[in-house]
């Protein structure tokens, strides 16, 4: 009891800290609007924050599958790509407005993940990872070849729309919603089943868990969200081609952010994505030529010191410590 009482202020601090952070994030664009482009927060800061928020969402999606069910997906950018191409094709070729294309992108990415998952999620460990790497490479080639539809290698140009605050708010809104959704799912029976699959899949199956259903549903949900990010990214970038959309380093960023923050935790990928962006800015500014090497070394160093990510350092599993979730004892 005492222990729980002592934790109360920590939880309160964390909650109010989160609230302050959200308010600041929500007000940032107003500062940018007043700063005429050269204040502390200008349009390019807003752009880079938007990219960071998109990575928060992508990393959370990746972690939802790979961190919670243990299926390490090396090709997750495939679903981002499907969303980007849905928006790109429908806006540039069919003249659709933006928002409905997001829905189409989300649904096609989600449906593709369920189908691909049915085929690849019997594969264990590295075999699944490689199969997803293959899936992503195949999709990139399809985008290159299906020229009449996708514009092929030269790509597609979308109607330009340079409203940075709008994209910022969309990315922020999605990130908040997705993290809240995953946090909630993690606490349900479905979330428990996902963890069971990660810990011992045949064991879970023999205890009545329909593992293929749980895995593919989780995969579909994550892919759906990545499809939305892809659509937003395509529109704000106003141009897509196979190489900038199906970019393998984007998957790697999702993985790094998750592992850096704390694989399998909910808040870990958020912290990891933020840290990765900050690290990149600092390193890039100070080691122009060597920034990739320095960044790589720094990441290796951090992982050696903090094998459980930043969350591990805090000695708490982001409010997700199962001891606390299930600690409510039955009243007698």
């Amino acid at each position, binding site marked *: 009891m005492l222990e729980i009482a002592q934790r109360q202020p920590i939880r309160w601090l964390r909650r109010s800290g989160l609230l302050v952070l959200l308010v600041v994030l929500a007000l940032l664009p107003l500062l940018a609007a007043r700063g005429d482009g050269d204040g502390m927060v200008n349009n390019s800061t807003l752009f880079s924050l938007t990219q960071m928020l998109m990575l928060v969402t992508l990393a959370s999606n990746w972690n939802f599958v790979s961190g919670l069910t243990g299926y390490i997906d090396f090709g997750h950018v495939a679903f981002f790509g499907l969303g980007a191409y849905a928006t790109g094709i429908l806006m540039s070729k069919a003249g659709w407005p933006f928002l409905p294309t997001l829905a189409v992108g989300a649904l096609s990415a989600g449906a593709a993940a369920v189908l691909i998952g049915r085929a690849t999620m019997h594969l264990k460990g590295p075999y699944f990872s490689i199969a997803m790497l293959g899936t992503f490479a195949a999709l990139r080639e399809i985008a290159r070849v299906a020229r009449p539809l996708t514009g092929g290698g030269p790509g597609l140009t979308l109607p330009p729309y340079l409203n940075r605050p709008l994209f910022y708010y969309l990315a922020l809104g999605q990130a908040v919603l997705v993290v809240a959704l995953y946090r909630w799912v993690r606490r349900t029976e*479905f979330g428990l089943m996902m963890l069971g699959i990660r810990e011992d899949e045949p064991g879970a199956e023999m*205890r009545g868990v329909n593992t293929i259903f749980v895995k593919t549903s989780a995969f579909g949900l994550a892919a759906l969200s990545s499809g939305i990010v892809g659509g937003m990214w395509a529109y704000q970038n106003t141009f897509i081609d196979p190489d900038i959309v199906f970019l393998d380093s984007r998957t790697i960023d999702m993985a790094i952010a998750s592992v850096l923050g704390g694989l399998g935790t909910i808040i870990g990928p958020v912290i990891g994505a933020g840290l990765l962006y900050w690290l990149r800015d600092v390193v890039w500014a100070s080691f122009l030529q060597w920034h990739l090497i320095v960044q790589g070394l720094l990441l290796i160093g951090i992982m050696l010191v903090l094998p459980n990510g930043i969350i591990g350092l805090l000695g708490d599993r982001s409010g997700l410590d199962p001891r606390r979730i299930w600690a409510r004892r039955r009243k007698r």
Partner: protein
Amino acid sequence: MNRRPPCAANASPLLEGRGIGKSFGGLAALAGVDVAVYPGDVVGLIGPNGSGKTTLFNCLTRLDGLDAGRIHFKGVDITDHQPFQVARMGMSRTFQNIRVYRKLTVIENMLLSRQWRGARWPGLLRPSRPEVTERADDLLEFVTLVEQRVDLAGSLSWGQQRLLEIGMALMSDPDLILLDEATSGVNPLLVDAIRDRIMTLNTTHGKTIVLIEHNIELVADLCSRVVVLDHGEKLADGEVGAVLDDPAVSEAYFGRRGLNG
């Protein structure tokens, strides 16, 4: 011992396997084994190391695919079922090399083993219902793990993990429980606890139980019937006293040495 009387032979079996065959490469782990388990039975499955006992459990729970034979459970042909479907029909088991979710808490292990039959999307998108949690707590009391409720399962002693597995196997309120060496590697005090629990399950709760066990004393104590496997073949099957006195059985099991030394 106040053991239930074995069921009349003309009752229909709860579980029936016919001609079960399973090979690994060239090795026939099971070569056409017939088994029948009747409601209310406690059946001992014994045999030397490598005789195919665990493989038989794996086939019955549909973890391993069969090379030959059919399996019926509650009158339904489950040969082509998925393991989770068999579990939902009311067959649960424990494992020789313990399979608990080591990085989850004891209570989470229990909640995750509940009866999932009829649990559907989106009903799964809520925390465990109070009646499930309550059942888990009752069973933790039954397997004497109340104190360890929020410890990680991996931090329990080997014997406690065995008890946890028994608790998990009971969460789904199964009709048939398969126990694979539930007492091996367990300290003698806990062996007695496990023996007690198995007895209570059968006599008080009417569960049908099959247990793989190397401890012959325990088999003689608990079981009404014994099946003996040797090199993937059924060597004997019958009333416990008769089977244990059979010279062919003691020869297979203990080499030249007889059962009594």
